[in-house]
């Protein structure tokens, strides 16, 4: 524990606050559009989802570490370092999400629990993508390709995902509850995958 406590300040300084901050501002601007008129209010769930995506794109940079190779062989395990980064970013993410929700007029705000589940799943997916980038590549800054992958995946899911497994449904849609059961599965899967990716392998798969 003393080790983690002493790491808090330097790790805090290594986090990509600029990118996360810009993503957060972009997300809040998108959310603020729900206050611009009646038609915008009708689109509030979609605007909120666009804001979530913007913020998640920022979180894809969370594990960018220019000193990755210089600190590749230190005894502090990688899962501890990743967990610390996530823990330091979590209060900022929670504050951002609270602000985003408050920006949406109460009358048109989607069910808070369900939309928070979507936000949580998207953010965890972004960090999991970054963890996979660290786990399976040698790049010190996996953020950009992961952010691109996240955006592309979101667009492809919206366009081509089968209706019976729909994730992005309007609030009034009868599939809303079922869709959020699926969001729960996405969140759980992302958490498990993220935990797997955070661990350093002791051996590679033998391919002889």
């Amino acid at each position, binding site marked *: 524990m*003393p080790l983690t406590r*002493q790491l808090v300040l330097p790790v805090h300084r290594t986090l990509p606050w600029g990118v996360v901050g810009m993503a957060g501002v972009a997300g809040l601007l998108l959310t603020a559009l729900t206050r611009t008129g009646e038609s915008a209010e009708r689109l509030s769930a979609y605007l909120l989802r666009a804001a979530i995506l913007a913020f998640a794109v920022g979180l894809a940079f969370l594990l960018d570490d220019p000193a990755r*190779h210089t600190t*590749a*062989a230190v*005894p502090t395990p990688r899962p501890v370092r990743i967990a610390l980064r996530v823990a330091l970013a979590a209060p900022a993410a929670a504050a951002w999400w609270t602000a985003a929700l408050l920006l949406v007029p109460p009358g048109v705000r989607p069910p808070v629990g369900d939309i928070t589940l979507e936000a949580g799943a998207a953010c965890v997916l972004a960090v999991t993508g970054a963890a996979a980038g660290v786990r399976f590549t040698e790049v010190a800054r996996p953020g950009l390709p992961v952010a691109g992958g996240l955006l592309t995946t979101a667009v492809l899911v919206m366009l081509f995902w089968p209706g019976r497994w729909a994730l992005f449904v309007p609030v009034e849609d009868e599939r809303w509850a079922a869709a959020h059961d699926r969001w729960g599965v996405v969140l759980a899967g992302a958490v498990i995958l993220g935990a797997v990716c955070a661990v350093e392998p*002791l051996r*590679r798969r033998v391919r002889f």
Partner: protein
Amino acid sequence: MTPTVSASGLSLRYGGTRALDDVSLRLTPGVTGLLGPNGAGKTTLLRVLATALPADRGAFTVLGHDPGTARGRQEVRRRLGYLPQTPGFHPDFTAFEFVDYVAILKEMTDRGVRHREVRRVLDEVGLADVRGKRIRKLSGGMRQRVALGAALVGEPGFLVLDEPTVGLDPEQRMRFRELIAGAGEGRTVLLSTHQTEDVAMLCHRVIVMAAGRVRFEGTPAELTARAAGRVWSSTERDPGAKAGWRTGTGTFRNVGAPPPGAELLEPTLEDGYLLTLDDAGAEVAA
């Protein structure tokens, strides 16, 4: 002498390329040079021995610990210093803050002891005067010394240095040689380099790699001796030579199989290295 590092049968593939092919070696205290052309597998071997990259096959121990287990790897890392080929930094950190950050990651939790150790290594690498300066404002050579300081912090028993002198000017290289020679006193240093003169001046042992395999392991004198009777002088470039170049005196220095009656020259470590690579190339082609 008990080896610091003992490896047998290390193999690793990247796609269809064998980066390491059944590598076995033993490292003892002192500086061991690792020579080889680009793509020989030097960096891969260093990364495996530094526990930054797991091998596909084979086993090794460092300071008596097996990095093939989680506990063993952590024990190894507690006694390891690693300077990668392209060290990265957090540019807004000062030299002191960065080495201090690495020291925390190396589990030095007592702040007073740690700060003394950070000051000691920054003194050792000659950065005492600029320890409060942001890394973004340091020259390339100074940044390299910050990375060496980060590798040295905590008095590691095994130091892995991947081409630390690349891109440095002659004065900086000389300074680095002093540092590496000092670091090699009482600990085991594995130094990857393209500079045969670094090996000749610093190393008590040398390993030559090509195409993922160890082609030579011995002393620098033994590597030099491989070229004995295979270096000669001529007034024209000898077409039968494996390599030949005009020297400053206007004569040609040739390396390979000399013709009868050739004027033989004293070989250098570089000649031995070139001929070892040539022999390895012939072996691969066969």
